[in-house]
């Protein structure tokens, strides 16, 4: 790999420039993620469905660590707990831990492109799901089996399209008269 590669002036002009996301846009994406999570689907699809809510939270966390924090993650987690009818606080705690890991890693994550971020997001999702399993097992539920971790794999794969999609409306249109 050529590490000495510098951006030429031409490349520099071709770089994408993004607007800052407004709070309204962030709320809208979170609501959409919740709707995606609530879709009524057959059980075998549910096994592979990534958790869209946590992926959206993590995306905004990486992009704007000052706008997205644990309080939002906590509230979203409570909503998931009520909708999923499980222990109140299970998702909330797991989401907070995921956000904490992302806040620590966000400077590092922003150095990578989307493709290389995916495995690291996968690691965060793994820790998050393990937390959820621990809480459920301590709460007296049965261990759901290793297929529970399918969602980790699908989640880290879904990170790529989700982060591309979320950034599309923020992309600035190139102004031909700029220079």
């Amino acid at each position: 790999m050529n590490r000495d590669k510098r951006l030429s002036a031409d490349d520099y002009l071709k770089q994408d420039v993004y607007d800052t996301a407004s709070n309204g846009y962030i709320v809208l994406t979170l609501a959409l993620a919740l709707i995606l999570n609530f879709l009524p689907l057959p059980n075998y699809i549910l096994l592979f469905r990534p958790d869209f809510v946590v992926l959206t939270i993590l995306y905004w966390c990486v992009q704007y660590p000052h706008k997205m924090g644990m309080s939002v993650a906590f509230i979203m987690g409570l909503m998931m707990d009520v909708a999923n009818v499980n222990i109140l606080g299970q998702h909330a705690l797991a989401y907070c831990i995921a956000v904490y890991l992302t806040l620590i890693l966000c400077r590092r994550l922003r150095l990578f492109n989307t493709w290389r971020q995916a495995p690291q997001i996968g690691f965060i999702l793994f820790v998050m799901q393990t937390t959820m399993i621990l809480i459920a097992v301590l709460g007296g539920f049965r261990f759901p089996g290793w297929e529970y971790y399918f969602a980790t794999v699908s989640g880290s794969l879904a990170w790529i399209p989700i982060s591309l999609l979320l950034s599309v409306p923020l992309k600035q249109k190139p102004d031909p008269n700029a220079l």
Partner: protein
Amino acid sequence: MKTAPPFFRHGPGPFAKLIVFTCLSCLLIVEDLRFKRFHEVRQIIGTVIFPLQRIAYAPTFIYDEVRNFIVHFNLLEENTKLRQQFLENQEYLLRFHTLEAENTKLRELLGAIERIEKSTETKTILAEILYTPRDPFSHKITLNKGIYHQVQLGQAVIDDKGVIGQITRIYPFSSEVTLLTDKNHSVPVQVLRNSLRSVISGTGKNNELELRYLSINIDIQPGDLLVTSGIGGVYPPGIPVAVVEKIEHSPSDDFSRIVSNPIAGVDRNRQVLILSMIQSSVEIPPEAKN
């Protein structure tokens, strides 16, 4: 000495925040598991997310509408078929009426107390499944009828084949059903073949129920149909619950392990029926109420 004001305004660091939120979550988890409190919190959040759940449900709703529209074209054919089925059922019903009359007479002969008619009289509410959770831990579903539609706690939920579960939480416009397969859910049943009474419980696995604490020499065979016994007053008697799949004897155990499969599509159906018993079969004496 005065310290210089910071350049950037920071809140508490991430670790401090994590500790605060972890404590808050642990408090919620323990309270929820041990004391089942925070019912109001659930109610409020449930009402807030209800519109989102409705929107998520919209594609299914549209699909249904489109299918209904297509079905309109073969309505005539279906009508003939249904009429035929109605006639067949009518015959069964007639036979049922004669049997019922005969049964009453026999009961009178035996001097048995006539079963209270009202206890078998039920009112039904048709509901649709709004949401099934992704979580493999929770054997619960959400229905689209709630307090507003006169749904009450403890009502039985069935589909066209048998029992699905029981209503355990109600929100203004939706309600939660604990499925038969939930680990903490039990139904009083009896074996159709020999009227043996027992209680069937969920195991936490999909498609598996268990008859616990029955001795090894009990008269149960694979293939036996288990129906609700009506004891306890929640489920009306005679609704199919499960079919016995296998019976295992382990030499180290005093009881045999009897595994059975639920008959109703516990995780398949969309439309379900909420039953409400108008009157409990057991009348509580006034002394017991105080």
